[in-house]
């Protein structure tokens, strides 16, 4: 945790899009969110997950297979169609990072509201968060090369891995707290959940007004990618889950889990790794837009999901 804080704090003075106060708040947010995530877990959850790995495998595939791929497709078919890759390379990088980070805790909340499988959602969030240490840099490296972004943007992938690792440490600490005090664990879990939700209003209140001009001057393909990433992700995962005949409840869970990425984490990672880049605001553009729109998208999707015949489904044994 200490390590990540140091890395996150480096070069903060150059930030224009995210100022120092916001960075501090962001760090606190992430810390609390991750802490809360861990506080809801026991080692038993992992052994259970390993014993019935199908949900996790599917989640893993959708998280690190589909989402980055969707980001890549959107970049190629939308973003690069209207501007030369050299100009929007950094925006594309932001989109790729957004597609490669693990699932966010907000997905647990929406899963709850859409009467999905909360236990599965939680395990998937944790699973992808832990895997992110390896998978996010790997996936990013692969697509950045494919898009030829690697040369225009020097990414220290090992640095990226360390940042993510630093963010995972609070998960372990949360588990530890839970181990010693169920009460502290439960309170942290609740607070973490609240902060996960508060992140969006926080973004709207602080970031949007100051970057109003930037938002106005942003071209529609960027918006399309930011919105499309979540939307296409959700429906692609839902389609696959239904195709392999998963229980609708689990399909809903996997859909939301896949489409809803960890926005705060993406932003924190970018701030930590690219803060020295004078054009860091361009990289942050899609993660910020994504984080704003995903709430609207998830709400609409949840409303749609809720129309499903839930009473009948509750009785389907949970195969995952």
């Amino acid at each position, binding site marked *: 945790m200490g390590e990540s804080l140091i890395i996150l704090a480096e070069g903060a003075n150059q930030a224009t899009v995210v100022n120092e106060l916001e960075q501090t708040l962001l760090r606190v947010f992430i810390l609390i969110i991750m802490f809360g995530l861990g506080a809801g877990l026991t080692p038993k959850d992992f052994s259970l997950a390993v014993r019935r790995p199908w949900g996790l495998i599917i989640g893993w595939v959708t998280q690190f297979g589909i989402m980055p791929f969707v980001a890549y497709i959107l970049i190629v078919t939308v973003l690069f169609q209207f501007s030369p890759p050299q100009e929007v390379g950094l925006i594309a990088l932001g989109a790729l990072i957004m597609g490669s980070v693990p699932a966010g805790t907000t997905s647990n909340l929406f899963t709850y509201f859409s009467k999905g499988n909360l236990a599965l959602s939680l395990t998937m969030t944790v699973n992808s968060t832990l895997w992110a240490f390896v998978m996010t840099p790997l996936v990013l490296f692969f697509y950045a090369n494919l898009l030829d972004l690697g040369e225009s943007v020097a990414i220290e992938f090992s640095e990226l891995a360390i940042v993510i690792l630093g963010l995972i440490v609070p998960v372990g600490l949360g588990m530890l707290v839970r181990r010693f005090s*169920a*009460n502290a664990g*439960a*309170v942290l879990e609740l607070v973490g959940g609240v902060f996960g939700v508060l992140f969006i209003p926080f973004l709207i209140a602080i970031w949007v007004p100051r970057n109003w001009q930037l938002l106005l001057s942003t071209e529609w393909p960027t918006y399309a990618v930011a919105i499309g990433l979540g939307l296409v992700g959700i429906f692609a995962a839902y389609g696959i889950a239904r195709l392999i005949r998963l229980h609708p409840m689990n399909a809903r869970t996997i859909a939301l889990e896949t489409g809803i990425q960890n926005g705060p984490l993406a932003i924190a990672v970018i701030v930590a790794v690219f803060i020295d880049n004078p054009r860091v605001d361009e990289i942050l553009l899609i993660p910020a837009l994504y984080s704003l729109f995903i709430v609207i998208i998830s709400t609409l999707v949840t409303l749609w999901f809720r129309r499903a015949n839930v009473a*009948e489904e509750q*009785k389907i*044994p949970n195969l995952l």
Partner: protein
Amino acid sequence: MTQRPWLDHYPAGIDPVLAETTLAHVPALVRRASAEYAKTLAFTQVMANGMNGSLKYRDVDAHSDSFAAYLREVVGLKQGDRVAVQMPNALAYPIVAFGVMKAGLVLVNTNPLYTPSEMIHQFKDSGAKALVVIDMFADRLPEVLRETDIGTVVTVRISEFFPPIVAGVIRLVQKWWSKTLPRITVEHTSFRSALSAGEKHRTVAQVDAYLDGVGPDSLAALQYTGGTTGVSKGAMLSHGNLVANTLQLLQMNGEYITPGKETALTALPLYHIFAFTVNLLGFYHVGARNILIPSPRPPSNLKRAFENYKITWTTGVNTLFNALLNERWFAESPPKHLKASAAGGMALHESVANKWREVTGTPIVEGYGLTESSPVLSFNPLGGMFKDGSIGIPVPSTEIACVDEKGKEVAVGEPGELIAKGPQIMQGYWQQPDETKNTVKDGWLYTGDIAQMDSDGYFTIVDRKKDMILVSGFNVYPNDVEEQIAAVPGVLEVGVIGIADEKSGEAVRAYVVASVPAPSAESITAHCRQYLSGYKVPQSIVFVDELPKSPIGKILRRELRDSAAASSSSTKGA
């Protein structure tokens, strides 16, 4: 009565006669355990998210003294006055229940989910002078109180005795998120201020003086029952009844309980007689730590309790055990420290019992009793031979017989009405001499259950007398049919009743809650044909989303009959 073959089947070292006790009343039992296990944790209340609070034995003793002093000194109640208590499982419950009894008052347990009219009936009938109620349900009081003699209302929070920050968070969630804290418009005292008011007046000697003249024959509780048959009646349970029953069931399972070392899961509501005697009194007496679950539904609410505590004992009903077995987290990671489980309240299905043993690797035994018998009459001896599907042998100092319509004992293996005699049989129904005369004759409690005894002296409940279905003159016991249907893969729950039929008088109908894909009605019928005589096979099978259940999860056949009758008359009308 001449036949007592069960006497040969008590496990070695267990006396079939209840040992003499010096405990004259429930407060003496509480006092003794509180002194012996003073520093041990007595109760831990666990919320669904893992938030919890605990009380040690000495805290329970001291706080219940304070509450007794409050009721006598501040409220001014007199020995024998009734106090209604209406709350889910929470840390305040033992304080209030023990406090009421220490004050020499009579406890009237009340289901918190009662409708105002049910509350009015119970409060008026018992003549309760004070009410201790959970704040979440206090909004119904204005219409209830004006019909009753209740002069004092004490409101309890679900988070009583929790660490302050945790209690605050729970309060915030209740207020702003779940919106479960209605405005209370009647005059009331908070539990906290009642306790501190009582504390000012409290000395142990003085609290003990409240019990002057209270002995084994004094009334301890009015436990309302018969809601499933119509108007509910108050079973008069004496201090002697409750103490005897506590000791009876402990004597029966002695070797599976290590005093001061057990952790018992209390998921059934304490206002119900099963958990009241078995968990609250029984496990308290042996210095166990009771894990109180305010709301066991959905069963995932129990996950944190199983994760965070080394549960060694569970008590429950068929529905609860079945629900747990259907939870993935439970079935795949069963509690490691569990020693044994006791089932009661309703028939434990063999399929559930077997699966429970298979999954947990520990024994589960079924017992039997009624509110009118405090409640335990029989149990399968854990340390001896236990028979599935049987309610076991009578607990020490208890006699059970099966009799015919004339009250004559039937032959071994023949069905007859189960009657029982022992120190746990109630004194009668409160202010209902006629009902009492019909139910308790010569000290024998007529249970209304049809049972049979085998040659070992083990009893098996065939069914409730009034649930029996008469198909063309043949007796069909719903339990038989339910047991078979429950064994069909994909059937989660089943309730069987008789419905009026022009040809056969009554016809068997099964209500089934199934998983998806649901088994077809044909496959259920085919299964029944294989194992049941033709007249027992259901004529109709109705798939439903859920079955009506009592507070402890017993399937209410009466409600199924009512709704079947209502829908058939409405179809006729249409």
